[in-house]
């Protein structure tokens, strides 16, 4: 009997169309897998089994009746708990929203329903997407399926772990400074942050509105492309939504698999290497470059000198925007309330109990950066650095069609190792943050495992704004070349998880 949890979404689509499998069978196989391993992995905060099976049954009936169905109809998906979902609890990983059931769907949730994809459940995340390890979740951390003592990345560690543990073939992520790409890197999966505005943010609980972007998480580049095209497109409910057609990601991925990158210029970002980068991460990255060269690409070195200041600018802009966005958690309209005398003291008591330490740190940092007397030196300067980073990218993209770097400087570290050192935690995102500051798209795909610890390493591809399709072409070409060497996708190399009886 085929174990359908090991298939790619593209293979599931083909099998559904040919009648080899039903959506109910696919959905049930994933729910069974979740029941078997999620006690140890803890990728999910909420499991939506009944509704998922109902969607699946509807798809199977429609298919039997000969109805036209969307491409991914019947393929199950996991959704990061940052998206509001009517009829399912939504917490964004925070205790302040425990038990909240939204009264409406996010645009992306609606699109998944219209695509008739069974929603398996809501995945764990750092509280309000603040973190790189899921250790800041109000509901306990997720464990990396490659080694349960290690972090699955963050903030979208629940989504990445669900893919690596074969609990879901596809998942939704959100990326403010790397929360899709870094978890993909440390779990040996694929994650894409689209161009800012490429996917509607309506109904995604906001962290930093000028940086946040939703995107697809998958185990293959082609699967990510299929999901990207479902999620993307203009939405009048989001004023920052791009008014242009969704890029042809699937076509680009299929073109990439043909394996010819002749004439493509790949720029290696000089500043994203060296000190702080683990040897095995750099080794696999360099091997990836060799593969691109074999495919016909030309490798050039580019310099982005202002990246030195990216992390600092990010940790001023993000907290500033977050401190404003999180003001809505005031114990009045929804969420937790801790009564304490008058309304002002009730708010302060509620926020003290409902928010975790990292959220409090960032709210206070933002309050400080925006306060009178400090605004110009901090927030104002950070916005200028943002301009300098955009200029660096513009200059680099004159010399290269795409830019590349390791996604994250190290393989996954142990849970608890950096929890008391916020600055060490922030360094995880040093290579992913510049793309958010500039609004450009970025992808992470597996480059192998580091020889020194056997844990996954990631390869990041960045493209100019609106040119998301380019990453899919080059990513799919590299992925195919690497898979030939590995004898299959990297995720298959992860140790088998113990299955609960």
């Amino acid at each position, binding site marked *: 009997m085929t174990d359908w949890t090991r298939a790619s979404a593209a293979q599931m689509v083909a099998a559904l169309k040919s009648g080899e499998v039903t959506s109910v069978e696919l959905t049930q196989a994933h729910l069974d897998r979740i029941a078997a391993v999620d006690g140890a992995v803890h990728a999910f905060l909420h499991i939506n089994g009944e509704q998922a099976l109902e969607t699946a049954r509807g798809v199977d009936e429609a298919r039997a009746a000969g109805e036209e169905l969307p491409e991914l109809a019947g393929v199950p998906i996991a959704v990061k708990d940052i998206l509001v979902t009517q009829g399912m609890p939504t917490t964004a990983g925070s205790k302040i929203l425990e038990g909240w059931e939204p009264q409406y769907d996010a645009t992306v949730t609606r699109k998944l329903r219209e695509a008739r994809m069974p929603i398996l459940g809501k995945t764990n995340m750092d509280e309000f997407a603040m973190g790189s390890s899921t250790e800041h979740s109000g509901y306990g951390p997720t464990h990396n399926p490659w080694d349960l003592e290690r972090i699955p990345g963050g903030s979208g560690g629940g989504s990445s772990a669900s893919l690596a543990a074969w609990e879901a073939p596809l998942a939704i992520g959100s990326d403010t400074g790397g929360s899709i790409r870094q978890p993909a890197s440390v779990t040996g999966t694929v994650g894409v942050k689209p161009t800012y505005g490429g996917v509607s943010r309506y109904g995604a609980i906001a962290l930093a509105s000028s940086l946040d972007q939703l995107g697809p998480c998958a185990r293959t580049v082609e699967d990510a492309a299929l999901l990207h095209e479902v999620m993307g497109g203009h939405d009048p409910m989001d004023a920052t939504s791009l008014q242009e057609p969704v890029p042809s990601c699937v076509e680009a991925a299929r073109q990439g698999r043909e394996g010819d990158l002749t004439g493509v210029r790949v720029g290696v970002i000089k500043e994203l290497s060296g000190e702080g980068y683990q040897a095995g991460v750099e080794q696999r990255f360099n091997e990836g470059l060799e593969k691109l060269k074999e495919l016909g690409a030309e490798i050039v070195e580019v310099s982005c000198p202002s990246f030195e200041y990216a992390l600092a600018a990010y940790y*001023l802009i993000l907290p500033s925007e977050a401190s404003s966005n999180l003001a809505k958690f005031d114990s009045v309209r929804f969420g937790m309330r801790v009564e304490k005398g008058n309304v002002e003291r009730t708010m302060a008591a509620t926020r003290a109990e409902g928010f975790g330490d990292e959220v409090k740190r960032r709210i206070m940092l933002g309050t400080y950066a925006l*306060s009178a007397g400090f605004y110009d030196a901090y927030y104002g300067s950070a916005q200028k650095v943002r301009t300098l980073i955009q200029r660096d990218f513009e200059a680099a993209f004159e010399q290269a069609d795409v830019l590349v770097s390791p996604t994250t400087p190290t393989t996954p570290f142990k849970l608890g190792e950096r929890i008391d050192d916020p600055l060490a935690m922030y360094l995880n995102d040093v290579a992913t943050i510049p793309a958010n500051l500039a609004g450009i798209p970025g992808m992470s795909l597996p480059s192998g495992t580091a020889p020194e610890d056997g844990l996954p390493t990631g390869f990041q591809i960045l493209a100019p704004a609106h040119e998301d399709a380019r990453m899919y072409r080059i990513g799919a070409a590299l992925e195919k070349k690497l898979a030939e060497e590995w004898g299959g996708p990297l995720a298959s190399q992860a140790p088998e998880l113990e299955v609960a009886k």
Partner: protein
Amino acid sequence: MSSLERSDVARLAALARIDMTDEDLDRMSGQLSAIVDSVAKVAEVAGQDVPATSHPIPMANVHRPDEVRPSLTQEAALSSAPEAEEGRFRVPQILGEEA
């Protein structure tokens, strides 16, 4: 730029409406000072002639048609409130110290 004092952190917590215990303030002031010191370097490179960027993809005058659309009912909007009364959100006393 100087580091944050414990009293600064207490003032920020009050502004941000987050109660803090003495122990919270001790821990937070050390961590926030370290973060503030490390991010202060943005001021080194940002010269007068560099314009600020607040939004990554330039857009202006984004409108949608001014049409009445379906929206949440009053009942739905109040359904998640900690407390509601007569079709309104109910909150603790706003003025005065005694509840």
